[in-house]
């Protein structure tokens, strides 16, 4: 086993603030949406809390964004421009998650600094981090000041459309909060990936020195 530094400090700081913030947003969002049947927090306080955390997470997102935009680690979020290779790697990874993992087969993906995600993770995180998270922030911002952003809301298709997109993404992220820790527990030990997201170092079987550009 070798240790490979794949989670730089800014990414770890962003990750854990984001994780806690998203849980808080989901809980306060549930309180806002179902205030008629749930009364853990007063409605006004839940809205204030939801807004404050939302703005904090928008700021936090820029830690992540600026880090990747201005370092060569941006490659982690680059698409595979070879469709044949992409589909082959995805199918192998899906076969591993669906079958191989239960048979103790080795993970077909080998972590490296510039390829820390497998094919399925890669596409998922690209869509989530560069499309869905900003979209959720944007719709949240529009709903925060409906009158001030009336023009943008009109362009988006109206308040109902903005609200629907925000809630659909809320459902998606709520599901993600459960799926993500499960998938993170599928390392060589159940806590390996959690420790790595604290220390920055992933334990990998192959020699890190052989990690070169794709």
């Amino acid at each position, binding site marked *: 086993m070798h240790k490979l530094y794949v989670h730089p400090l800014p990414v770890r700081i962003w990750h854990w603030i984001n994780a806690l913030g998203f849980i808080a947003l989901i809980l306060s969002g549930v309180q806002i949406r179902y205030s008629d049947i749930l009364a853990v927090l007063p409605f006004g306080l839940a809205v204030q809390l939801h807004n404050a955390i939302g703005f904090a997470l928008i700021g936090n997102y820029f830690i992540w964004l600026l880090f990747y935009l201005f370092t060569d680690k941006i490659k982690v979020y*680059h698409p595979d421009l070879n469709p044949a290779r992409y589909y082959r790697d995805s199918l192998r990874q899906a076969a591993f998650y669906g079958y191989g993992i239960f048979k103790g087969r080795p993970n077909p993906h080998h972590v490296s600094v510039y390829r820390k995600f497998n094919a399925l993770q890669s596409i998922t995180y690209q869509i989530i981090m*560069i499309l869905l998270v900003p979209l959720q922030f944007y719709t949240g911002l529009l709903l925060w000041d409906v009158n001030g952003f009336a023009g943008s809301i009109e362009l988006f298709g109206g308040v109902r459309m903005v609200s629907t997109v925000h809630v659909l993404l809320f459902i998606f992220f709520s599901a993600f909060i459960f799926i993500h820790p499960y998938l993170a527990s599928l390392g060589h030990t159940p806590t390996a990936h959690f420790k790595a997201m604290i220390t920055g170092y992933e334990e990998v079987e192959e020699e890190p020195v052989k990690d070169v*550009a794709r």
Partner: protein
Amino acid sequence: MTTLKKILVVDDDPVVGKSFDRVLSGKGYAVITARDGQEALDKLAREDYDAVFTDIKMPGMSGIEVAARVKTTRPWLPVVIVTGYGSDANEAAARKAGVAAFLRKPLSPEMIEDSAHAVMPENRPGAAATAVASPMPAALAPGVPWRVGTFARNVGLFFAAPFIGLAYVIALPFIGLGMLAWRGYQALAKREQAK
């Protein structure tokens, strides 16, 4: 017509040579590989190269020794150490041997391309061709000069990624059906042949 710059990559792991080839081919470079120091010296004795990139830890001769031997016989030839064992002692030994740069793995494609570009004699302002103990070029210490074109490409790919990803996802069922149809056709064709 421009002449290809010949780069000798010395590493016992063939993946490294393939990576250099993948990054540099089509960009004015020809990548030739050697699996150990002796093979590298044999190749250097037979033909001329424009730069040598060598790993340190290899069976037989170390990369530092390869660098020292190359610099003794061809002091004008830039040698770059590429290693995962980037200790201070190794770096000091490499500098003493007169290497042009000391790069630590993992290497990004930009690091490979930029270092290959930077060590070429015509791209090294003020670097005397006979500088046996030439210091490491500032642009290569520790690795990557920043370039606008590379930055623009990286950022472009970054923001294109989710849309390319969505295109892959949307195309997946059609590709799956196409593969099934193709397999079915092959099976039928095989059955017909068997008859």
